[in-house]
């Protein structure tokens, strides 16, 4: 299963009586009804760790591109109408700025490791606090309340799983807590953000900018306001899109399938 296709529903499961395993690409499994699968005796697997570094790299790429207005700059450089580059056309610093990471799992932690190289101040919010060694290795400060993180961060990066608890985690209230100079970066799932509230916040300059690798739905309808905002960078869910990683994902999935078909313990099984 790639990019959540085909859709696994009751009809599909009934039509495939000998289906033993669904191997899903990537780490997110929010698109799978695990109880339904289990009721048909079908196992499920994902590819959790192999996607982590590429996704963290993309999170950094989006943060840097957004802060330095890279896409706008490119458009200016290649436009037929450009005669000179205006002196007052400016971006903002990443080095030394404050990054708030919401969701400090494998991906979130790798983002923190990379951000440390830029001398960023790192705050994080997570269901559970990381241990002291892990925190001090990246200089990360725990924020028990997400509000504290939102109020202090220049960049807020979302790297949580999508669960009922994280659905619309960032809504109107959270966006209003953020600094008006802050940027929201989402590399988790579109539904973690209240998208309508985000559009409004960007239009009304409640926050400065957003950089999104994920939206809901994917792709967005072609007339969606997010596609037209100058202060938004959107990429087509390419967090794990490198040749090497895709190959590794495929290898993982093949292993899971082979194990599932031969009745052996399934690597990366999701229960």
């Amino acid at each position, binding site marked *: 299963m790639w990019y959540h296709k085909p859709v696994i529903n009751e009809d599909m499961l009934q039509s495939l009586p000998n289906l033993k395993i669904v191997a899903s690409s990537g780490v997110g499994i929010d698109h799978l009804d695990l109880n339904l699968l289990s009721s048909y005796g079908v196992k499920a697997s994902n590819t959790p760790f192999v996607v982590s570094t590429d996704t963290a790299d993309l999170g950094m790429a989006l943060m840097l591109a957004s802060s330095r207005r890279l896409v706008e700059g490119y458009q200016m450089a290649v436009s037929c109408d450009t005669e000179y580059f205006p002196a007052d056309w400016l971006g903002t610093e990443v080095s030394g700025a404050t990054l708030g990471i919401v969701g400090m799992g494998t991906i979130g932690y790798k983002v923190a490791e990379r951000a440390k190289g830029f001398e960023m101040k790192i705050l994080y919010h997570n269901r559970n606090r990381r241990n002291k060694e892990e925190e001090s290795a990246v200089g990360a400060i725990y924020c028990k309340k997400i509000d504290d993180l939102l109020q202090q961060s220049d960049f807020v990066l979302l790297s949580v799983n999508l669960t009922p608890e994280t659905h619309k985690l960032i809504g109107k209230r959270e966006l209003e807590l953020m600094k008006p100079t802050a940027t929201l970066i989402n590399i988790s799932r579109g539904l973690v953000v209240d998208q309508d509230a985000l559009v409004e916040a960007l239009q009304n300059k409640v926050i400065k900018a957003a950089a999104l690798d994920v939206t809901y739905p994917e792709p967005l309808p072609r007339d969606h306001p997010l596609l037209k905002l100058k202060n938004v960078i959107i990429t087509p869910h390419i967090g794990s899109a*490198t040749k090497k990683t895709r190959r590794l994902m495929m290898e993982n999935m093949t292993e899971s399938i082979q194990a599932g078909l031969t009745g052996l313990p399934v690597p990366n099984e999701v229960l």
Partner: protein
Amino acid sequence: MSKKVQAIYLWWHKSVIDQELLQSLPNLKVIANSGVGMDHLDLKLVASFGVKVANAPCDVSGSTADTEVALLLASARRLVEGYHVAISSGMEYCEADFLGVEVTGATLRINGMGSIGYKIALRAKAFEMNILYHNRTWRKEQEEQAVGATYCKKIDSLLQKADFVMVVVSLTPLTDELIGKREMELMKPAATLINISGGTIQNCPATALQTGVIRAAALEVTYPEPLPRLPSLLITLLKLENIIITPHLSIKTGKATYMITEEAAENILAALNGLPIPSEVLPS
């Protein structure tokens, strides 16, 4: 009016300082340049008019290093292309086909390990990149170890092993066209070239990109800036999908611009008061 002008704050390459201008400003005492690069100024000509010159080598190396890593990441992950796909009015794209190359664990070769090159190495290390560098001189062992960098005496050596080649030198006659056709052909076909130095270092990147000699390029500056809107250039360089060109973003932040301007102002005030100029540049 022209008799009143005693100082010029040169914001990038404007205004052009030539014989005519210098002759028209008899009371000019100092030209303060924004930034550190001086290749656009004829220092001997300016000195012949008794005018002092200063640059602003203030520490915007962090800001510049950030831009270069931004370009490296954007190019590797095809961020600009991805953006255009995501917002395009058509629905033609197939997600499974859209692949970039890995940054974590890749080999970065840095040509030029001054303060900017070193800060780039610090950032690249956080991405677990393997760092090779070439510089006029070796860095100290502790400095090398801190970023896990390996020195390469010859420019050619290990061009073949690098996934990313980044050029970070100040433009001088020695470095003009440092990366030309020959060097690009030595690079891996899967490699990316990132140039953040004076724009003339590029030589025919269009051909190399079109024919797949190298995978992609990201150019921070081009000479002249912006690229002239000539039909032939428009068709080639500017339309290539595997090139990102940015308008000298490296110092375009509020903080960096402020620091540069503050330093230039210090230089101007010193010159006008007959005091030693903090960052005076003499013709070599």
